[in-house]
């Protein structure tokens, strides 16, 4: 397995062009959280031509609904949620400058095409490693929709968040490659 690559947000097209499916990444800097409800609102704002609560350009969105922060900690457990629920909203966000997404699970064909067209990148975080990933979050602040609680948009500052590249701009898909490499027999 290759050495992990240290990345800093916001992401540029030059950085993204160097990333390939299966690469290990340690991400640093600001990322924004958003799940289903927040995505729905962001896309509605874009369709109405209104301003978003944060500038999408070069940013990374983390699909996470963290557990409440215990006293003395910036955040509770904070692992990824299933990305496919965001698939219907993702192409429009990429079109408006979003560069990176962090989640778990396979993306739709439309998202894969949008990643190639708008030069984005999809990272997979280890689902179910909520305590480990929370340790990488240094700051957390709600920037929009506090009434959504766990589903609000948080601005996180992360240090060495461990990720794998799931889809790159070259049209590769880790879920297809991985299965192909290790399959002994298909479904009977």
């Amino acid at each position: 397995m290759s050495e992990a690559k240290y990345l800093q947000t916001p992401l540029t097209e030059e950085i993204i062009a160097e990333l390939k499916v299966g690469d290990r990444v340690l991400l640093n800097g600001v990322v924004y959280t958003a799940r289903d409800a927040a995505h729905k609102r962001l896309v509605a704002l874009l369709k109405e031509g209104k301003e978003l609560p944060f500038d999408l350009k070069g940013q990374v969105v983390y699909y996470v609904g963290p557990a409440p922060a215990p006293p003395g900690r910036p955040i509770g457990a904070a692992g990824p949620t299933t990305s496919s629920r965001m698939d219907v909203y993702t192409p429009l966000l990429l079109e408006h400058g979003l560069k990176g997404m962090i989640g778990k699970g396979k993306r739709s064909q439309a998202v894969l095409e949008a990643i190639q067209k708008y030069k984005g990148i999809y990272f997979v975080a280890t689902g179910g490693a909520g305590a480990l990933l929370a340790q990488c979050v240094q700051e957390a602040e709600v920037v929009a929709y506090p009434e959504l609680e766990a589903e609000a948009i948080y601005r996180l500052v992360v240090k060495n968040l461990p990720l794998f590249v799931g889809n790159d701009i070259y049209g590769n898909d880790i879920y297809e490659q991985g299965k192909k490499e290790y399959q002994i027999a298909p479904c009977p």
Partner: protein
Amino acid sequence: MREIKVERLTEVVKRLCQEACVYLNEDVEAALERAYMVEQSPLGREIIKQLLQNKDIAKETGLPICQDTGITIVFLKVGQEVHFIGGSIEEAINEGVRQGYKEGYLRKSVCHPLTRENTKDNTPAIIHYEIVPGDKVEIIVMPKGAGSENKSTATVLTPAAGLEGIERFVCKTVEEAAVNTCGPLIVGVGIGGTIDKAALLAKKALLRPLGKWHDNNRLAALEMKWLKVLNDLGYGPLGLGGRVTCLDVHIEVFPCHIASLPVAVNVQCHAHRVKKACL
């Protein structure tokens, strides 16, 4: 007749909710350690390594293993000689969930199915009651995340579909789950009864400790066979490719109507959280 105050249920449920979400059971830990030895994919091994670190961090910090602290499922086995006093059993259990999720800083993930309005305290719990001989009460708390439950399935096959048809259904379910649910997975299969009974059997099958085959030899052989079939699919940890797609397959069966063959598959993630207590 043995009298038990319902407030004792509240205390136990509260404690079990918190313990289940933070402390991974030893059987799951051992299964992950075995998976680490067996897995050939470097990415897969890295993922399992992170999961083993994750459970240690959760234990040290008191943070939940996973942020999806689930909808709370409670299995209550009540001895028929027990008389509960001091209020409603159901309300006492829900109060335990309410207190456990608030005091344990666990995520509240329960909402109205149509308005999607959050109940804000993770209630109501899904409670399964069973009346058994004796004067004891067994309480099992199983917080279940949506990532795995969303990929669980149930169907009614024709008797002609037979074992082959069941195997195909289990396999298709795991194929769908493997790239979205947090694997390595644990697969509970309920065969027989009615559609509702099969679904409950599938979930109850998950309660058996990992690494323990069915007591019935024929079913144990089937569990071994299907575990191999599922792992040969190559999905691996998190579906990124590898040898360990599933940690275990547990089957439970119940007689059914001569004209039907109900089958349910309850998919469980590696964050398999189950805690038990007795009163």
